[in-house]
């Protein structure tokens, strides 16, 4: 049973944000409760990744107006690392390559920093390796990647799976997945969505950015949102994705002009 007075996990109020002085998000509102899965769809350039960057605290993105509350705390006052420590995770649309930094060092540092933030002791090497091995296997990734540099020379699909691997290792409360399904082969899509479904629980929420109605089918989200021009113009259930597939974005744009 959902408690009547449940507080939102994430609450975005009237968010206007952009790069330099140019607003990209224009008065965006979104509320997500623990345990929910939300899908955001929208045309190229509508501002989906901008939303994910603002949530993750990317320095060049400026918030001009509005508020963001995460677990009752003011997200906009937190550094990117504190946001991650609090349990916000962003799977990047374009994961960054870092030549010279090994996946092993990176992942272990990240896991232990998250644990330190949460007041937990570092994982001992054996537990860490066991956890890592399990997650790699679930995603069908070879353990060889742990000796390679972060994302360097990874195939497009490997990069996306690597984001899911990090999500699984960091155990977030809110996972934002920016087109993690793009560029994956059919098996990989199943592995990634299985990874997401396995992590679903009553504490955790997902904000999934995708272009594919198929993913909506797989994930059975609680809410589907359509973003137009930096604003969430339509919110509904799975049927919204079906309508979008049938009518296309122009239909929704027209509707929003008429309103």
């Amino acid at each position, binding site marked *: 049973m959902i408690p009547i007075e449940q507080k939102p996990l994430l609450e975005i109020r009237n968010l206007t944000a952009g790069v330099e002085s140019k607003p990209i998000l224009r008065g965006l509102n979104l509320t997500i409760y623990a345990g929910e899965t939300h899908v955001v769809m929208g045309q190229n350039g509508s501002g989906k990744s901008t939303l994910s960057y603002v949530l*993750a*605290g*990317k*320095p*060049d993105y400026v918030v001009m107006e509005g508020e963001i509350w995460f677990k009752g705390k003011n997200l906009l006052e937190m*550094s*990117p*690392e504190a*946001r*991650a*420590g609090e349990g916000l*995770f*962003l799977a*990047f649309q374009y*994961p*960054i390559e*870092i*030549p*010279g*930094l*090994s996946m092993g*060092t*990176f992942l272990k*540092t*990240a896991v232990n*920093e*998250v644990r330190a*933030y949460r007041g937990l002791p570092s994982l001992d090497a054996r537990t860490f390796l066991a956890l890592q091995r399990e997650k790699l296997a679930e995603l069908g990734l070879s353990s060889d990647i742990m*000796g*390679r*540099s972060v994302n360097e020379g990874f195939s497009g699909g490997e990069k996306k799976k690597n984001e899911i691997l*990090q999500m699984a290792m*960091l155990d977030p409360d809110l996972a934002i997945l920016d087109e993690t399904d793009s560029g994956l082969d059919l098996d990989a899509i199943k592995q990634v969505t299985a990874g997401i479904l396995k992590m679903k629980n009553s504490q955790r929420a997902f904000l999934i950015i995708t272009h594919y109605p198929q993913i909506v089918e797989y994930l059975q989200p609680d809410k589907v949102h359509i973003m137009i021009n930096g604003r969430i113009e339509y919110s509904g259930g799975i049927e919204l994705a079906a309508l979008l597939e049938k009518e296309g974005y122009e239909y929704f744009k027209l509707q929003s002009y008429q309103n």
Partner: protein
Amino acid sequence: MSSIQISSPSVKESYKYTSISRLWPGLGGQNGTAHHSESPIALSLTHLARAVSEILKHLSDPLLQFSLLPHNISKIQSIGGLDAFQNFPEHLSLEGPQQIYHYQLLSTQSHSNFFNLLVRSTLSQPAIVNLYAVIDPGKNVEIQLDCVSQQAFPLTVNVVFVVLEGGHLHVNQVLRGCGLMRCNIFVILHGEGSQSHFNGVVLSGQETHHDLALEVRHLARETRSLQKVRILGWDASVSAFGGKIFVAPQAPLSEAYLEARSLALSEESFIYGRPFLEIYTDNVRCSHGYTTGSLDENALHYLRCRAIPEQIARQLLIQAFVKDIFPSSAVNTYPQYLISILENHICNAVA
């Protein structure tokens, strides 16, 4: 005094050096290059080349090998094909608080063709350290070169490697410390099929001025060289890298790659880089490149999004930039000594 002569850099070669007048106003010569009778004077590459060709002429006769060297050179190492000498110019006083360390490390799981020589120069007076090494045919020599200037006294390090037929030379070098340091590395791939692999890291901070000049000469068929250089500039430091690859007419089917990258870690740091290719034969594969930039803000944000605090993220990225040149297979072997030096240095600099 000897076949090895000392001269200041000629105008023609002044590209190797950048102006030091900002650091030692009294030392500034014409053209902005350092020239002062009491300051260390760089060996020009031309003179080094002449000296080396003399060495080579006599190499076949082991008895002559020593007689041609200047009388004030003392032989410090001779281990299975690697001969190293140090040379102090006559006008240089060795009195006072001056130290030169040469460490020799032998690989614990050594097989006969593999040697490590760790050369560490720590001086507290203006000085020149010269090291000459000949890699015998078929020998595989790995050298870790850690050049440290400890006080604000100019230090010049000249190193000449001659690699004979089928020999393999692998050098990992770090330049660090305070004050002015110049390092001239001269690799001569003299024998057919000889190879060299040079990894160099320049760590500059505060008001240091580091010059690294690297010249690789391919003088025989099917020689191969790979040069990777990383330069880190903190504070108001100045660093300069001049890298030159020379492929002689008698060196077809050779390969040479030079890749230098620098990272400016403060607005006041100056980093200069100049790669050169000089190729006199067809049928060779060569490439060179130099890039300079600052820390990748996107990578920094990526790490911070994984809960890694900014300072640690910076350290990891700077270390990654430098460690990128060491093959991952090298971890836990001798470069580890230099890698830990690099890691400590970067941690202290970022803290």
